[in-house]
């Protein structure tokens, strides 16, 4: 059974999409026509450039509506739903789960590593206050949370995690320019492995541009992207720790 879908504007299967983009050409009739032809060149069957404006002498901005006839069978789509919202336990449920299955406070260490100075992600997950009315890990009765903040070298994070006998390590990476996040995350796992410590911690990466797939590729146990709350991360850690304990 196939279930082909197309973008929906105001009628089933009309295939309408909105686009906005900048071209490095002066604004004017030629720029607008170039924009229209470019959109058609991308495979759209129709395109109307509804707005254009000069951004400077040499750059121009376009808003366009285009039509596509390409559809997709959504039944054939598989997504990375490892930590889909809704699948996670609440804070109280995590605490109860840890109390029942681990029976002690779980130690979680988190940091932004490398030169990344953006603590917004790690703070949203770890700080008492949390984010958007979801409390952070510091608030969890069964979690002892250590937020090391920003610009923490990987070596220091590992030393700290060893010193406090961490169960899990969280790394947040917000800056992704020139793939610096991949470099930082890879270096962390390599250092852990060199020290023979990889098996000791549950390792979790997070950040707006980090998905589970990328994190797994880089050797982490999980990755959390946009829209993640503390209870998503806590649920994963709790379940993973129980799984690890069972495997021993």
């Amino acid at each position, binding site marked *: 059974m196939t279930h082909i879908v197309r973008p929906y504007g105001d009628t089933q299967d009309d295939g309408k999409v909105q686009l*906005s*983009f*900048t071209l490095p050409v002066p604004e004017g009739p030629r720029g607008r026509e170039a924009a229209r032809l470019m959109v058609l060149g991308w495979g759209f069957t129709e395109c109307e450039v509804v707005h254009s*404006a000069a*951004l*400077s*002498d040499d*750059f121009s*901005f376009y808003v366009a509506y285009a039509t596509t006839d390409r559809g997709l069978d959504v039944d054939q789509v598989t997504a990375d739903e490892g930590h889909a919202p809704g699948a996670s336990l609440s804070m109280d449920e995590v605490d109860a789960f840890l109390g029942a299955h681990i029976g002690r406070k779980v130690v979680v260490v988190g940091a932004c590593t490398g*030169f*990344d*100075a*953006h*603590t*917004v992600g790690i*703070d949203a997950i770890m*700080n*008492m*206050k949390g984010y*958007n*009315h979801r409390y952070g890990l510091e608030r969890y009765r069964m979690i002892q949370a250590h937020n090391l*903040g*920003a*610009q923490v070298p990987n070596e220091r994070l590992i030393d700290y995690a060893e010193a406090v006998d961490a169960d899990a390590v969280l790394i947040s990476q917000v*800056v992704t*320019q*020139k793939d*610096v996040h991949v470099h930082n995350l890879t270096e962390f796992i390599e250092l852990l492995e060199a020290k023979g410590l990889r098996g000791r911690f549950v390792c979790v990466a997070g950040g*707006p541009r980090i998905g589970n797939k990328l994190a797994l590729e880089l050797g982490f146990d999980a990755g959390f992207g*946009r829209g993640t709350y503390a209870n998503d991360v806590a649920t994963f850690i709790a379940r993973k720790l129980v799984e690890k304990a069972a495997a021993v």
Partner: protein
Amino acid sequence: MREKLGLSKEQIARARELAAAVTAPVLAFVADHTSVTVERATLRLLGADGAGADGVPVPNLVVDQLRAAPGGLESGAAERYCNALLRTGLGPAQLDERIAAGYRVADAPLADAAAIRTVGAELVEAGLGRVRRARDRRQAKLEEFAGRNHEPLLYLIVATGNIYEDVKQAQAAALQGADVVAVIRTTAQSLLDYVPFGATTEGFGGTYATQENFRIMRAALDEVSERERRYIRLTNYCSGLCMPEIAAMGALERLDMMLNDSMYGILFRDINMYRTFVDQMFSRMINAYAGITINTGEDNYLTTSDAFEKAYTVLASQFLNERFAFAAGLPARRIGLGHAMEMDPAIPNGLLYELAQAQMAREIFPEHPLKYMPPTKFKSGDVFQGLVMDSMFNLVSKASGQSIHLLGMLTEAIHTPFLMDRFLAVQTAKYVMSGWAAFSDEVEFRDGGIVKTRAAAVLARTVAFLEEIRQLGLLDAIERGLFADVCRPKDGGKGLDGLVAKGPAYWNPVEDALRAGLGLAPARGPGQAGARAPGPQGEAP
């Protein structure tokens, strides 16, 4: 500016008294200390520039030599640099080349003290003379193009990592209507204990602040200023481990604004608090002398803590930043106190609380060019909602008479701004601010209403908070996490080893000239009590 909130004058005066009491012991400590970067900034203003073969800047080479030599830095770096000029008979540029090639200023026997001081006076005249010419040039252009900027000033950021790419984006931003262009620094730079040399084309999330990059961007914005007949201000980040050196470079290259907070480095970059307080003082004296407007960083409190609950920490920090700035000779009209619109959009009447906070800042700091920062924390990938949030921000800013308006980006939560993102920000801001141009004059706030009640509550809570800090002491208050929920140990953080107690023979002709020029009391010798406190508005009494 008409006062509309009926804020308690007694409470405002009390908050200023408390801020003076809280900062006094810190300023006493500052007076007795220098740091590696204070000395390097001094050298830069005396003419030290360039870098050795491995990229180590000449000011670092000199300071590192002196630190390793007997006596270290306790007498300052100026004496040895001036001495080397005397001993070699070279000018600063040639001496810098020699130092870059390995010449040791630390080893040359000291010449006659009077001769060294004469050389120092000549170098100060040359360096600060250049700073004064930059200041005069800015003033002349502001007068020539008077009335052509927006109110508030529209502030845009570029951050490509490549200074030549930054130039394209900055010129486009200026043509679209920006009054201020800030070049964000690469994320690593605040923790470097040196300033890289030359033009740079690689950076992460920003571009290195170097003197050459400053010069390149200044020239590019001057070009647009002439074409548009509108003076475009250039801004950079005077923070991190090289705060005073960035100030020196900015003063020489005619930057107009500097992000320059008294505590930001401590709280958000984990730089040692003693080091930060010493560095911020000297950097602010340079900024004051150069006529540079500082922007303080209170917005950062609100991205870390809750903006509704912790609003009083912003006001408290504004009072402290003001006092530290007055002590460095900055007049109120150059103190761009920061704040931000970061309350949870789900709070009912949240925009009224934001208006209350912004109007309160305006009334308590009437002459200060307040710097207002847009929503970031609750921005998501929903760019359409993002544009609406920014429009509300534009309205609150205009309605409360803010001075420096950092334009929000609809793609804030997604990527560094696209060219078209800045364009949309300028277009929508112009529309909102023109449409509500006289709103502030038209509207009064109701007695007992949400706005007046909220402002009075925040002010009262701020006074109580400052009382608490005074009892604890500022350093202990920071240690206990009273600001931004961040705890920083006094002896922790980066850069403490670069702090130096001034010795009995400490000599800094740049500091002496800055103090004289700013009407501040002369630097006191180590341990001498009784430095004159600046007057209530920062001018010398």
